């Protein structure tokens, strides 16, 4: 793979993380547990779509396709998002735990990318970080409120944490191209972020009266295009219009 192809793959990975997380959250529009949470989750989804657009536009400059082609006309195996973001909403506890685990990572990742030698990536990251700060506060506050809430809410949060704990390990795996780009100061060195991420998450989990699940085996594959069965269903809905009516706009 040449440098341009590596960078394209990397930017796509960043964009796919945001767009698939956003698509999952958008399912809750009109279905949030209370009006404020409905609005908050929809707002977060909108921010992530905005970030995905900037990243797709940049990826498109390297590849020649436009943002819509990249979002709507790629199949499952071409998506590079981490597996966590495609996991189903299930219940509000799963939504919050998934969001929190992702937000802590997204924050660190963008923070590192602000220093990228690639000017476009640094500019996008600087912008996105301002928004992710608010996302992380929202999901962290709900971790505390529900974890430290009633016996039922705590149990649901612990169950969600147990269910999802095998996914974040993938955040810190680097593909071959990513390692080369990180050495060149372009990509973020995600492997080095794991201790900080784990310390932040452990602190929150502890404050929320929850327990970090045992074992450190993790799911893997998303960054290489090997996905869980859920992504196909997400894309079927997200890409329907462009698949059924190619080139349609409004």
């Amino acid at each position, binding site marked *: 793979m040449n440098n341009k192809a590596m960078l394209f793959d990397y930017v796509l990975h960043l964009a796919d993380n945001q767009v698939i997380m956003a698509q999952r959250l958008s399912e809750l529009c009109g279905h949030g547990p209370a009006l404020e949470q409905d609005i908050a989750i929809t707002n977060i989804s909108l921010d992530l779509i905005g970030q995905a657009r900037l990243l797709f536009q940049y990826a498109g400059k390297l590849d020649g396709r436009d943002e819509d082609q990249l979002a709507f006309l790629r199949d499952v195996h071409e998506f590079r998002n981490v597996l966590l973001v495609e996991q189903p909403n299930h219940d509000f506890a799963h939504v919050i735990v998934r969001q929190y685990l992702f937000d802590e990572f997204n924050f660190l990742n963008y923070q590192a990318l602000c220093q990228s030698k690639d000017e476009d990536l640094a500019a996008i990251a600087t912008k996105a970080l301002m*928004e992710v700060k608010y996302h992380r506060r929202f999901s962290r506050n709900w971790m505390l409120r529900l974890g430290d809430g009633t016996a039922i809410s705590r149990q649901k949060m612990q169950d969600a944490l147990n269910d999802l704990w095998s996914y974040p390990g993938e955040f810190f795996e680097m593909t071959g191209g990513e390692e080369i780009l990180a050495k060149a100061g372009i990509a973020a060195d995600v492997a080095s972020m794991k201790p900080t991420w784990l310390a932040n998450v452990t602190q929150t989990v502890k404050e929320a009266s929850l327990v970090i699940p045992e074992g450190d085996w993790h799911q893997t594959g998303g960054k290489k295009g090997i996905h869980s069965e859920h992504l196909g269903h997400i894309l079927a809905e997200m890409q329907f219009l462009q698949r059924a009516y190619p080139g349609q706009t409004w």
Partner: protein
Amino acid sequence: MKGKVYKILAAVKDPEIPVLTLEDLGVIRDVNVLNDDEVEVKITPTYTGCPATDVMEEEIRLALFVAGFSKIRITQVISPAWTTDWLSQKGREKLIEYGIAPPVEGQAKTALLEDISVPCPRCGSEDTKMISAFGSTACKALFQCQSCREPFDYFKCHA
């Protein structure tokens, strides 16, 4: 000529908060008049996902077209990133008049939303509380005044 274009752009309104102009928002980065009928405008988006950005571009296009420009190029510049510090003083005053509390300034900018004191845009009381960190648009949070009991929008710090 450049001044004329700035003047036209200054009158274009934010589609979401129509008391503010694009000048008040601080989103206009640069203007290049290339010919009598050709102009390039550089703008900075506020929030990445803000749907108003696309509408703003359309309105800029329309205003310049009416003023006689037939070739209009609008470029988005994302660095340096837009911040609420770029809201003009006049814009801040207009927001209060409109019932939206402008972003807090100084040290409080980096504080958590729960910890800042946002004066009520209606009665001026400092006794207000946050109801929701996310409000009617991406850029706002929802607050309520404890004195006059009126709920109000707060324009969040983006920095």
